[in-house]
């Protein structure tokens, strides 16, 4: 470790507690980083594609998660290495931005790193590799746009959307009923989509799950479900044409925030206070009744007395409804959230065609369905499944499918899946490489090789001969000049992904390539790792 000395020969301390830190420099550091990145990619590699396997993750508290979703696996993996953390971030940003392809992006980055390692061994400077990758990624990006196809859909013709969602779902455990789930997802997205502005607010889609039943029982509800029941067991279980008062104030005597005291020192005061209190409860309930509400939904709790009064006045009520749900209810029913009883007016009430309570199984689980709302823009996907892990995994899968449908509404360009887009890009990048003079040419060629990693992993996971299959498909693409040839994962018998109806969104693919390249560039630029050594 390089040290600086002053004029008396004493060393300057540059790093605090230098001795207790390990430091990796130069090529060593890059190699270590690359191998960490590769290790992460190796974990995810087997999860890619329709025949990909799942991972079982046990959290520090002993809960078990079984998933196939790249972002979830990495999130729960409890990673310690800094570079591995970068890869986790990478997958997460793909998740936030696109929602799907979280596994693919990591596999891609891993392949790029692997190629970079080889180039480093040949003595090519990391920055030159990074620049070469940059150029190559731009070529691939533009090539994707060229091979992409627009396709039309409308509220009447949802078939293309459903097909794309099915491609996403086919790699998950729910692929048993991917058709119905894809339809549910597409319908949900279309229900909340703003087709003019090409925007979808996914917050309006609530995904709820309840253990029990079978996956086929999963349904789309044009309305909201709340995991609560009526505050009093004898309130009516079904309300038609409900007018809903949405309150964020408790049915309790007021609690002023300023400190105060009410002193009782005479009998009269005691009496008046008592009457005051009674009147207070009475007023609250009366107020709700006066504006014509037939259902009260409240964020807070009720005093026993208030509960009884509500029951007595025949005003069903729900208590302890969460803030997010309250907002959704307000959006769905067109009501306003009212923070004070005094501000209740008939206009602020939400309207719903049907509110009903449903119970499940042999336990006391109850859910409240609010349906036929004034504003049907909020929908709920209600998942049933054999066990808790299944429900969680289905939720994640549905999330992916929803994101894909949303992306298609934003931009209706698609590329074909099954690795066909990657292979086509690889061919294009390879061809372009020869035109670049200088060292970058090698990096660009390496990029083309890395692009082959995704179809290769697909073939491997499907039990095919990876190299044989890949080279066959590649030559077919060049020979027939057909960028739609991919890996036939499901053994259908054709390589043409157009016939297999396997689509992916253009922006998803583009984002994958860009994000992966960026992260790899960042990793390559690191030449010094300083970390506290273990003690």
């Amino acid at each position, binding site marked *: 470790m390089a040290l600086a000395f002053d004029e008396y020969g004493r060393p300057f301390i540059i790093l605090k507690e230098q001795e207790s830190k390990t430091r990796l420099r130069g090529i060593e550091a890059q190699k270590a980083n690359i191998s960490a990145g590769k290790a992460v990619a190796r974990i995810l590699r087997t999860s890619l594609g329709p025949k990909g396997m799942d991972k079982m993750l046990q959290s520090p508290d002993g809960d078990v998660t079984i998933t*196939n979703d790249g972002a979830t696996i990495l999130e729960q993996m409890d990673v310690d290495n800094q570079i591995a953390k970068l890869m986790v971030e990478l997958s997460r940003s793909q998740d936030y931005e696109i929602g799907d392809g979280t596994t693919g992006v990591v596999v891609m980055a891993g392949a790029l790193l692997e190629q970079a390692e080889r180039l480093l061994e040949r003595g090519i400077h990391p920055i030159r590799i990074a620049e070469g990758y940059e150029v190559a990624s731009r070529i691939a990006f533009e090539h994707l746009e060229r091979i992409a196809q627009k396709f039309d859909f409308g509220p009447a013709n949802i078939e293309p959307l459903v097909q794309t969602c099915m491609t996403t779902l086919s790699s998950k455990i729910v692929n048993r009923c991917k058709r119905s789930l894809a339809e549910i997802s597409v319908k949900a997205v279309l229900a909340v989509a703003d087709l003019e502005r090409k925007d979808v607010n996914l917050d309006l889609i609530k995904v709820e799950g309840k253990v029990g039943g079978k996956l086929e029982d999963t349904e789309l509800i044009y309305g909201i479900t709340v995991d609560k029941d009526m505050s009093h067991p004898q309130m009516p279980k079904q309300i038609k044409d409900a007018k809903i008062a949405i309150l964020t104030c408790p049915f309790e005597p007021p609690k002023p925030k300023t400190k105060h005291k009410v002193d009782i020192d005479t009998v009269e005061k005691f009496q008046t206070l008592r009457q005051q209190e009674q009147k207070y409860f009475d007023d609250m309930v009366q107020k709700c009744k006066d504006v014509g509400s037939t259902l009260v939904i409240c964020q807070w709790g009720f005093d*026993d007395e208030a509960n009884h009064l509500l029951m007595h006045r025949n005003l069903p009520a729900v208590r302890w409804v969460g803030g997010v749900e309250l907002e959704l209810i307000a959006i769905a029913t067109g009501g306003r959230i009212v923070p004070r009883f005094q501000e209740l007016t008939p206009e602020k009430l939400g309207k719903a065609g049907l509110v009903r309570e449903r119970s499940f199984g*042999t336990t006391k689980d109850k859910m409240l369905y609010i349906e036929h709302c004034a504003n049907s823009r909020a929908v709920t996907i209600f998942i049933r499944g054999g066990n808790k892990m299944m429900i969680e995994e289905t939720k994640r899968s549905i999330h992916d499918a929803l994101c894909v449908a949303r992306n298609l509404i934003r931009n209706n360009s698609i590329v074909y899946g099954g690795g066909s887009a990657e292979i086509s890009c690889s061919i294009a990048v390879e061809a372009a490489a020869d035109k670049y003079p200088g060292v970058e040419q090698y990096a660009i060629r390496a990029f083309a090789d890395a692009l082959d990693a995704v179809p290769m992993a697909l073939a491997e996971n499907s039990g095919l001969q990876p190299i044989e299959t890949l080279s066959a498909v590649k030559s077919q693409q060049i020979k027939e000049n057909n960028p739609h040839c991919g890996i036939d994962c499901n053994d259908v018998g054709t390589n043409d992904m157009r016939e297999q109806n396997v689509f992916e969104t253009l922006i998803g693919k583009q984002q994958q390539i860009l994000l992966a390249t960026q992260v790899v560039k960042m990793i390559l630029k690191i030449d010094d790792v300083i970390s506290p050594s273990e003690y």
Partner: protein
Amino acid sequence: MAVDRILKDDASEEKGERARMASFVGAIAITDLIKTTLGPKGMDKILQSTGRGHEVTVTNDGATILKSLHIDNPAAKVLIDISKVQDDEVGDGTTSVVVLAGELLREAEKLVAAKIHPMTIISGFRMAAECARNALLQRVVDNKENAEKFKSDLMKIAMTTLSSKILSQDKEHFAQLAVDAVMRLKGSTNLEAIQIIKKPGGSLKDSFLDEGFILDKKIGVGQPKRIENAKILVANTAMDTDKVKIYGARVRVDSMAKVAQIEAAEKEKMKEKVQKIIGHGINCFVNRQLIYNFPEELFADAGVLAIEHADFDGIERLALVTGGEIASTFDNPESACTIVLRGASHHVLDEAERSLHDALCVLSQTVNDTRVLLGGGWPEMVMAKEVDELARKTPGKKSHAIEAFSRALIAIPTIIADNAGLDSADLVAKLRAEHHKEGCNAGIDVITGSVGDMAELGISEAFKVKQAVLLSATEAAEMILRVDEIITCAPRRREDRM
């Protein structure tokens, strides 16, 4: 320098074959543990809690056993979860579902060892499960139209469910109790309306069903002990000193005289309240909260029966039964009832309650879905036969998986026979031969130890239970099979409390 570790310190990672091995071993261990409780001659387990007092539970109920186990193996946790869900959804078959899932995995392990890809096994299992379900659907009996027959169906199902439990000696008696109780519900699955009270003493046979409502409470001192044509007020109100709920209120006095005055005012208030209650013209008052001595005395004076501290459920049920004051909006008040269990010890009573709960759950589900199957291993044999047929017709590696599925199904009657101390190989072979005839009703008759006609013996099971067992077990096996890597995080450190 190579980086070996990317995970945190204590986290462990198992890959590929090793991971699969770990899940198979875990799942099969759980199955072997619980296997012996299956069937009418299944044995019980003693569970000792690690908590204070080392309480002991004796049970035969799969869900209860698994719930109390502390398991570290993630695959085993999946099995425990499906058994819990089975309990919540249909209430019975909690052991069968775990055993079937375990047997499926045991078969899958052999296939994986024979180099068949897990995905191929899964697709085979899926086809087999679908086929098995259809086979069951073809053979179900639905007696919805015929009330008389349906009731006897219910009776048979209840007896079959109870026969594997501690209540098997008096199963007829208890089946009758359960059927009567469920019939009173008139099709609702709201088991809350059936109350079970446990009173140690007497024998199990002395248990009875009361068509009214029993509160395990004492009546206040000096009040009438028996009321006919009672008018009941059910309330949830404080009958001690009514607290002022306005925030920040407090009593501040400067002399003893004032204290007395305020006390008098409080008393006055209570008196008013009692007067108001009595003013409703009632002669029985049930309260969820405490009743102080003073109001109790007032009630006694007025000749009103007052009961304090009724529990939450009790109040709700009572309101349901009587259609009292707050129950005025309720439509069908006469549906609740109470089952009083008698037995030698708490353990027996607890187990009896669990068994009865299973029976009640199954019955209430059957009332909704009236399709019925025969029991005693009959459904498994029917499914196995159809699945075998399918295996023969299916080309490719999948057929191995389908065949394995049918072997796993046959494992259930095998275990039932083994548990009864019978020669399972001989019996199952006989059973299989019988089932190759059309419309066969043969199953294992554990009592005589031979193959018998299940329809004649009156052994029935609910279709809904069998279907749930089949589907959840396949789903769980599929989930575990798909895993090729297990990442275990370091357990969260607990602070040392010395």
